[in-house]
């Protein structure tokens, strides 16, 4: 499917800046009508009829011939129907600006790294996520000490008080995200977090128009271990925080168990900027909601040598001139 403008026939896309559907051709808003084209095949563009290459997990893509953004019906329906979607809040221009702002002080980055033409190549995509809910029960039993020290005359007193510490708590984890895309590096996707779920809404394919997307690549139980790990770590920290204030704590018994769990499939927004330098790819990912950027800037060795060498030369020249100048001025 794709969204056609009722006014001009152009492809209507979702505009993060305007927070609505927008036709970039006639600039009209909310003028979209759903079109499924004439071909039922996924490899034929329903707008121009051109043949498109569709990757295994792609659910939204762009036609290389007419540039229309297409949503593959079969991959957003049935078992692949996302329950939730977090629409892009950050448009391409804002994203480019964020990247420029963040990396402008990277002296040793290649000169064209932040160029308009390179940044224009960035793509917005909805990454498939499994969102896990857990009702967790945690408990702790231990012995804590509090130490008080005071001085009277020439004697120092140290009082150690011992307490039996008991904690019992329920933690309701709500939508712990784990990406379900083989193409996205797990560590990078973890760093993309957090997302503000206040803007998470029921799925509507309109939000996908203008962006790339994937269906989930693997089922929920295949990646749940990552969610459990996040949950265990966070629960342990919260449990520890609950008995903070003791000088020392000896653990007698502690543990946690999950009383109930569920999961749902959702799409979260990510901008991807792929920069190629000396035959090596440097991917940058930007959280499409918060603007958080993850990626490692390439280093131009020529620049490192030129800049460092110049600074060394300047400092050395100044230091070497000092004794000469003192001699001449005497």
């Amino acid at each position, binding site marked *: 499917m794709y969204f056609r403008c009722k006014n001009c026939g152009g492809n209507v896309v979702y505009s993060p800046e305007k927070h609505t559907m927008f036709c970039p051709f006639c600039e009209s808003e909310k003028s979209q009508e759903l079109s499924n084209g004439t071909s039922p095949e996924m490899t034929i563009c329903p707008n121009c009829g051109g043949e498109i290459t569709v990757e295994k997990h792609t659910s939204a893509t762009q036609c290389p011939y007419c540039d229309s953004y297409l949503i593959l019906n079969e991959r957003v329906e049935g078992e692949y129907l996302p329950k939730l979607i977090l629409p892009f809040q950050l448009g391409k221009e804002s994203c480019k600006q964020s990247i420029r702002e963040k990396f402008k002080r990277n002296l040793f980055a290649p000169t064209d790294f932040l160029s308009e033409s390179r940044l224009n190549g960035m793509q917005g995509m909805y990454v498939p996520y499994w969102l896990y809910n857990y009702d967790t029960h945690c408990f702790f039993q231990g012995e804590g000490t509090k130490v008080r020290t005071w001085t009277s005359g020439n004697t120092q007193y140290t009082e150690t008080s011992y307490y039996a510490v008991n904690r019992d708590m329920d933690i309701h984890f709500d939508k712990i995200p784990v990406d379900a895309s083989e193409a996205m590096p797990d560590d990078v996707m973890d760093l993309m977090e957090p997302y503000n779920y206040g803007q998470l809404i029921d799925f509507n394919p309109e939000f996908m128009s203008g962006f790339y997307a994937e269906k989930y690549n693997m089922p929920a139980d295949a990646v749940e271990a990552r969610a459990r790990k996040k949950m265990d770590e966070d629960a342990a920290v919260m449990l520890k925080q609950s008995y903070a204030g003791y000088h020392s704590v000896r653990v007698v018994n502690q543990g946690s168990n999950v009383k109930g769990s569920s999961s749902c499939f959702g799409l979260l927004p990510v901008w991807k900027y792929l920069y190629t330098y000396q035959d090596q790819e440097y991917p940058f990912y930007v959280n499409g909601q918060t603007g958080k950027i993850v990626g490692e800037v390439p280093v131009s060795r020529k620049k490192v040598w030129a800049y460092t060498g110049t600074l060394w030369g300047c*400092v050395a020249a100044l230091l070497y001139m000092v004794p000469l100048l003192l001699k001449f001025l005497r």
Partner: protein
Amino acid sequence: MSDNYREEAIKQYLRHFRVWFIIVAIAVVVTLVAGIIYSGREGRANSSAPKERVYDEADILTDAEEEKLRKYIAEKEARYRADFVILTFSQPVEGQEALEYGCRSTDWEENMMDIADDFWDENGYGYNRDFEGDGSILIDNRYPGQRGEWLSTSGKVEDALSVRAVENVLYAVDDYYDSDPCRAYMRYIDKVCSYLDGGVQLGGVYYLGAFVVSLIIAGVYAASHLGKNRAQDTTAVNAYVAGGKPELKDQRDDFIRKNVVKRKIETSSSTRGGGRSSGGGGHHTSRSGASHGGGGHRH
């Protein structure tokens, strides 16, 4: 890289280093101008002082050595624009014997200092003027039982030589004081000249240090720009907790027992450290009212 990006890269580079380039350019210009003025300075302004620089009253140098020293001093004087005088003698400068000899006190140091300062002042030495002019004198007393040398400095030499520097000059003389007096006196001239070279009191060590320091600064600069902008985990532990916090069902802290430990505080007695005073003289005013620096070593 296209020409546009190459141009942009050069612009970025020049923009980044513009302050450095301006500072270095100013420093080069100032140094060049100072160098030109320095090399163009007129010669010796003081014509009232005697031409003689080597007075071997104790007769410890051969004629050839005296001549060698005179030539050496003439060469250094022209280059450093400072007078270098050497006086050897043999007379009592300590105790009752010194008073009988016309000295003002019985103290070795005071008398050596007086002799050096007076010889300099009364002869009107000083490269640029005959009072507080630039230069130094080394006097060497070979009187049995009261041997030793004293260095008196004046003008820019006084400014250039700290107490420690005076000590270093005297140590350089001491190395050959007995074995080769001529060499000892040449060492005196060399050492004073090295201090006149400016901030190079450590000689080659300074240049090596400057090289290393600039290398370290450049290294820190490179490292500080290489390790930037790595993303951090900014997800709070309660980011996915409904309500932002756990629901505490039980929170009991039951007191079990306590114990108290007493410790007597020891009062530490203060220690008295001993210092070691160093010899050598500093700045002072001679009997004629001129400012001198210097110091001496007794053998």
